[in-house]
């Protein structure tokens, strides 16, 4: 095996902060190399350094034995390094083919060459673009990801960087992606896969490098290092390396896609119904009926999960419940109060907390501080003579930051500067603090979060249910739902199927069948 990419003493400083320091890593041709680490550990920075997005402050990179210091992503690409970003970089209003032609050179897009190249990629890696004339905006997430990878493979790179590619994919799509990675590696190229999901790492990686706090915490061949050891390296604490993953906290394990289901909540006393929805119907302007008579009951003290392949109406359901979207038909009640058309403020007053799916747009204001984000809905508490008592506001926020272990310099830090996990802690802290909280709706609450944060978020949701709050969790991670919920509904074509008792031994199979639409 020859070293394709070699990093020595690589570091990146932003002002006084070391985002990355003294990183050494060797990627061999023909392998899949995983870069592991919690959010904020420096994974994306490392990826961007190699991909030419940013320049290192210290250290050296060599590619095939010659010095490599890309000044731009295009520069990196010309040296044979392609990158697939965490957030999609396709133009949604254009077709797949147009998007793929964008990366070409010259004035006239060369459709013939593209077609030939796509055939080659399909033969070599089993990656087929189904409909090149479909608009990207109409494609499901998994298909978009595929286009993204095809786009990266078009110029025939030696090294493909994938930054958190599985965060938005469901089980089958992840399987397909893993197959692709293996095919690319088998062709003599190398794949660098950045992730925090150990479950995937153990399936696909040949070698792994674990980053923690901006530096290499450990690395090795997967044949020599156990997954349990990798996890303790990632978290920086001894999770019982000897016993391996079986004795991990089941919730944390579910967060990294590891352990099998284990009921972690004793059957709690289920109280009266706190929230009901009946016959919810939402039709999009394009005529697509995304919700088709969905209904559910949320009972005090119970955690209800909604599983399902994305795009089966879960997103719209949460938006209807939170008041961001008005249904065409159907009713929503909190207790006895009808809230189908009530504004969010009224719902909050009735005791509804919501952790929205789209954190950056719906849950927080990135350019405002942690303190402001925590108390924006409750500023009356900090008003005196019409003025805001900044001191009191910051003090209250500092308390929350401590209580929820938010990693941030202080209450005035802008939300934008926090890692995803810490942002989510702030959002959750705010929603759990809603006065007279009765119902908590959390949509994809652990998406894109690191292991530690996943564990914390799930623990908080569990505690909320123990306090007698009705909790609804929408997630595409079935393992997580099985570990957390009491009963699970499955979103399928705008309806909610089930419920499945999460403690039943056949729950996983039942959910799988419902998701695939093979029963019901």
């Amino acid at each position, binding site marked *: 095996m020859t070293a394709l990419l070699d990093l020595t003493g690589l570091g990146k400083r932003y002002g006084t902060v070391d985002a990355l320091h003294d990183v050494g890593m060797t990627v061999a041709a023909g392998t899949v190399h995983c870069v592991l680490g919690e959010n904020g550990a420096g994974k994306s920075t490392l990826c961007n350094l190699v991909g030419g997005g940013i320049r290192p402050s210290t250290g050296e990179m060599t590619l095939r034995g010659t010095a490599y210091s890309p000044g731009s992503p295009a520069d990196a690409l010309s040296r044979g390094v392609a990158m697939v970003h965490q957030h999609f970089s396709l133009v949604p209003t254009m077709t797949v083919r147009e998007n793929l032609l964008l990366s070409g050179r010259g004035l006239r897009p060369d459709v013939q060459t593209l077609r030939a190249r796509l055939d080659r990629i399909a033969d070599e890696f089993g990656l087929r673009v189904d409909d090149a004339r479909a608009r990207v905006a109409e494609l499901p997430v998994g298909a978009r990801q595929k286009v993204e990878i095809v786009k990266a493979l078009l110029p025939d790179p030696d090294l493909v960087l994938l930054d958190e590619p599985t965060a938005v994919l469901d089980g089958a799509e992840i399987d397909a992606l893993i197959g692709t990675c293996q095919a690319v590696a088998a062709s003599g190229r190398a794949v660098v896969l950045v992730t925090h999901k150990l479950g995937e790492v153990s399936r696909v990686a040949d070698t792994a490098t674990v980053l923690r706090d901006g530096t290499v915490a450990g690395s090795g061949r997967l044949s020599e290092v156990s997954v349990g050891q990798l996890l303790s390296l990632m978290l920086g604490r001894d999770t019982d390396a000897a016993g391996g993953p079986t004795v991990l906290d089941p919730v944390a394990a579910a967060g990294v896609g590891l352990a099998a289901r284990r009921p972690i909540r004793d059957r709690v006393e289920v109280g009266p119904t706190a929230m009901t929805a009946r016959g919810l119907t939402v039709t999009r302007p394009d005529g697509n009926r995304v919700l088709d008579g969905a209904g559910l009951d949320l009972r005090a003290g119970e955690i209800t999960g909604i599983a399902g392949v994305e795009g089966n109406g879960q997103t719209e359901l949460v938006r209807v419940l939170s008041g961001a979207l008005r249904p065409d038909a159907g009713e929503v009640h909190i207790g006895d109060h009808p809230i189908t058309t009530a504004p969010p403020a009224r719902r909050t007053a009735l005791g509804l907390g919501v952790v929205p799916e789209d954190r*950056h747009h719906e849950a927080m204001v990135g*350019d405002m501080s942690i303190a402001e984000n925590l108390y924006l809905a409750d500023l009356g508490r900090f008003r005196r003579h019409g003025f*805001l008592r900044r001191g009191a506001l910051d003090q209250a926020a500092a308390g929350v930051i401590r209580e929820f272990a938010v990693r941030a310099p202080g209450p005035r830090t802008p939300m934008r500067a926090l890692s995803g996990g810490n942002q989510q802690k702030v959002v959750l802290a705010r929603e759990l603090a809603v006065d007279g909280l009765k119902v908590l709706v959390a949509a994809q609450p652990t998406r894109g979060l690191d292991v530690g944060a996943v564990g914390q978020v799930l623990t908080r949701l569990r505690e909320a249910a123990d306090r007698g709050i009705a909790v609804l969790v929408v997630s595409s991670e079935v393992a997580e739902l099985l570990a957390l919920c009491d009963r699970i509904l499955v979103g399928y074509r705008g309806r909610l199927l089930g419920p499945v008792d999460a403690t039943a031994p056949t729950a996983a199979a039942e959910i799988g069948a419902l998701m695939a639409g093979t029963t019901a």
Partner: protein
Amino acid sequence: MNTTDLRRAAFHPATVAAGAVVVAVLVGLVLAALAGAAPGTAVAALTEGMVGTPYAIGKSLNAAAVLMLVAAGFVLAYRAGLVNVGGEGQLCAGGIAAAAVGTTLPDGTPTAVALPAVVLAATTAGFAWAGIAAALRAWRGTSEIITTLLLNFVALAVLSLTVHEPSLLRQPVTSSETLPQSAPLVAGAHLPSLGLSRSPATIAILVAVAAVVAVGVLFRATPTGLRLTALGHAPEAAARLGVPVARTRFLALSSAGGFSGAAGGLLVATAPFVLAEGFSSGFGFSGLVVGLLARGSMTALGAVALLLGFLVSGGINLQLVAGVPATAVSIVESLIILLIAGSAWWAATRRAAARPAPAAETSAPELIGATR
């Protein structure tokens, strides 16, 4: 002061604005030289017109006051994510209302009654005029950039009609030489002088500074300011957190109109105390420019307004004394804008280069169901 502080000071909006002005004035001098005026003469004429006489200073201050008011309103709406291009029209609406009230009041009305009545009428008119666009934006989603811009032309036409039509505000026509303008306002509605000798400066500048400070305090230290900022940055999150999106948008844009309307009222209440076509002299647009250039800093807003105010009156003198076309000053003004905008862009790209590439995010879709 270490280098970081120095750099921060160098990138403060006020410093950038000042630098841009210096460069632009140098270019202006070259232009003046091309027009045949020796640099010495041009500089002398310009400074004479800007700060040479108490009269010039007073004129400049009055102009700066109007610019500040319009700009303060612009910033208020801008922070809430709305762009008010309708300053000129709102100014006209304010002027018309001020003239209507100021010429109808009985002659002996004391200042304590007449002046507040005139300014209040002007503010209300500006608020209502902007309210048309604001309501369309808030509850119908119509782009406020388009509506406020177009309403300018409607307001200018209404102004023209008002001062030409004897049954409206035109002064009694006594001869063929009667100008198409309103009768003068009653003495009580005249804006008091600042009390400087031989200076036309009025208390308008005090009103304007108070307004600028008020807007600054609103955003820095009040819950309302925070809600407006949240709405501007992330409308969906603001809606989620209980900000009544539509109503807040309506009030923010209408209030911006109120500020411009008040500015129009102050213009009419300043000598020669009449409403005439063209009384707004483009202050509505210049005020918008001031608001944009200040980039959120209220200090910079005051500074830029003063600079533009002084430049305008300096330019008039430049034409009178040195024979340089006043358009040279317009060119200088445009250069200032380009330079400040350019430096802002430069600073932003430098910052971006010094930071990891921000994650690409799709823009927020329009709010559905947030109309209330």
